[in-house]
């Protein structure tokens, strides 16, 4: 499967990555080679093999339903570019 530059730009947009056209061309080659490897894997007959959700042969541990966190808002909000009334402020999101 060969990628086109617009495929790469679209993937970059979905991941909110800014690429200039030179970068995009380079990634077309890199990503195409990665997809070729995926194609090789796809060729293996996996009939009757259950899909693997996680490489570790282990199951999820559960935690007790207890509140263990305290309010650290002050410290977290020191990282934020803009806050007001305890809210994080971000560029206006218009629906």
């Amino acid at each position, binding site marked *: 499967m060969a990628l086109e530059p617009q495929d790469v730009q679209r993937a970059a947009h*979905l991941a909110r990555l800014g690429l200039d056209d030179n970068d995009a061309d380079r990634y077309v080659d890199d990503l195409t080679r990665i997809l070729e490897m995926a194609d090789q894997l796809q060729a293996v007959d996996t009939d009757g093999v259950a899909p693997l*959700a*996680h490489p570790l042969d282990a199951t999820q541990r*559960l935690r007790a*339903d*207890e509140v263990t966190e305290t309010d650290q808002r002050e410290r977290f909000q020191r990282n934020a570019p803009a806050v007001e009334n*305890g809210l994080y*402020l971000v*560029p*206006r999101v218009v629906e």
Partner: protein
Amino acid sequence: MMQWETVIGLEVHVQLATRSKIFSGASTAFGAEPNSQACAVDLGMPGVLPVLNESAVAMAVQFGLGIDAEIPEVSIFDRKNYFYPDLPKGYQTSQMYHPIVGPGEVEITLDDGETKRIRVHHAHLEEDAGKSLHEDFHGMTGVDLNRAGTPLLEIVSEPDMRSAKEAAAYLKAIHSIVTYLGISDGNMAEGSMRCDVNVSVRPKGQEAFGTRAEIKNVNSFRFVERAIAFEVERQVELLEDGGKVVQETRLYDPDADETRSMRTKEEANDYRYFPCPDLLPVVLDDAYVDHLRTSLPELPAEKRARFQSELGLSAYDAGVLSATRAMADFFEGVKDVCGDAKLAANWVQGEFAGRLNKEGLDIASSPVSATQLGELVARVKDETINGKAAKQVFAALWDGEGDSADAIIEAKGLKQVTDTGAIEAMIDQVIADSPVQVAQYRDAEPDKRGKMIGYFVGQVMKASRGTANPQQVNGLLKEKLDALC
């Protein structure tokens, strides 16, 4: 004129009533200061790892058992990738391919008492997002992440509903099940239960579904009906004018009572789901599921059936009294104390529900307990007091004028007079005091006299301050008046 059929499917998001979040130990309490309950995991800080909350898992499985669903042995969390400021991680942890609850069924009851089974496709666990506040923050949007990471159970129905009424009945049934199980407070006003509605129309008799619109933000039972009614009319008009329904997301605006296109961007959403590498597969063995199954409370459909078969209530009464767990528990409390299911049903739905409604209270904040009401109904049953006096006792209990029905009956002297001699004395007095009415009675045609007796009954009851046995008064009055004719 073309006949149209409506096809509806619902996605109901239920906030689970855990103390802490689905993947972190931050509190889920409602109404806290903004961002005071958003920890490093909820904020998506680098290096944090989610750990799954055992109560969220148990609650999801309880719901599954409550709708007779399959509970798969393995369920898997996936990442749903999209960018929005109230989703700090850039993805929502959800379950796309292997949900915790498989196919099940919910029984709904319609107004005419008919029941219908609505299939549930699956239910999956996921995390809630934060809240964006679009009020004016100098042209910025404010974000509160307290809600981020609150456990949600998303319950996805099959497109089995055929009217707005069925959709509302389904939503009520889900609400009833989750509140019976105690896995959610079901508070729609606070967003504990939210609903997206998929609506399409098709010519009656056609097999293939029409193109559907998804309506978001339908957050009350009433709005579900109104949003669907509006949307069906819009789609039918569009089709009859030769247009086409576009598959899109629409927003219900309760103030304008209409749905509006959300003008989604050109590109379709591409969520690029993949298994979440931070969470291992969740494996639930039979012993675990069986343990939850045996601890399941009686659910609304079972209760409704038992109220009819064991207690002899009508389908209507059984439906009303089993609608919420609070109502059912209260009714059963009253019934156990007074020993008469039908009398208890009448009192709970009549005087009690009426007063709650009038005062805008819920059962939990009622000043009259089930035991107090049961003791009062017991006195009606054993004829210590008549119906009229019982209402006075109820009002007095409500207003805190006494702790028990017996104390109020005693203090107010409301005990029913059944002594024939005493009643006869009162009747004689009323007859002696009412010569005009007695003359009218005597002169009336015999078949008109039945109605005229009401005046005398009223006078005697008044003379007894409401305590005379009305049946006795009626019988004795008739005898005495007819003897005068």
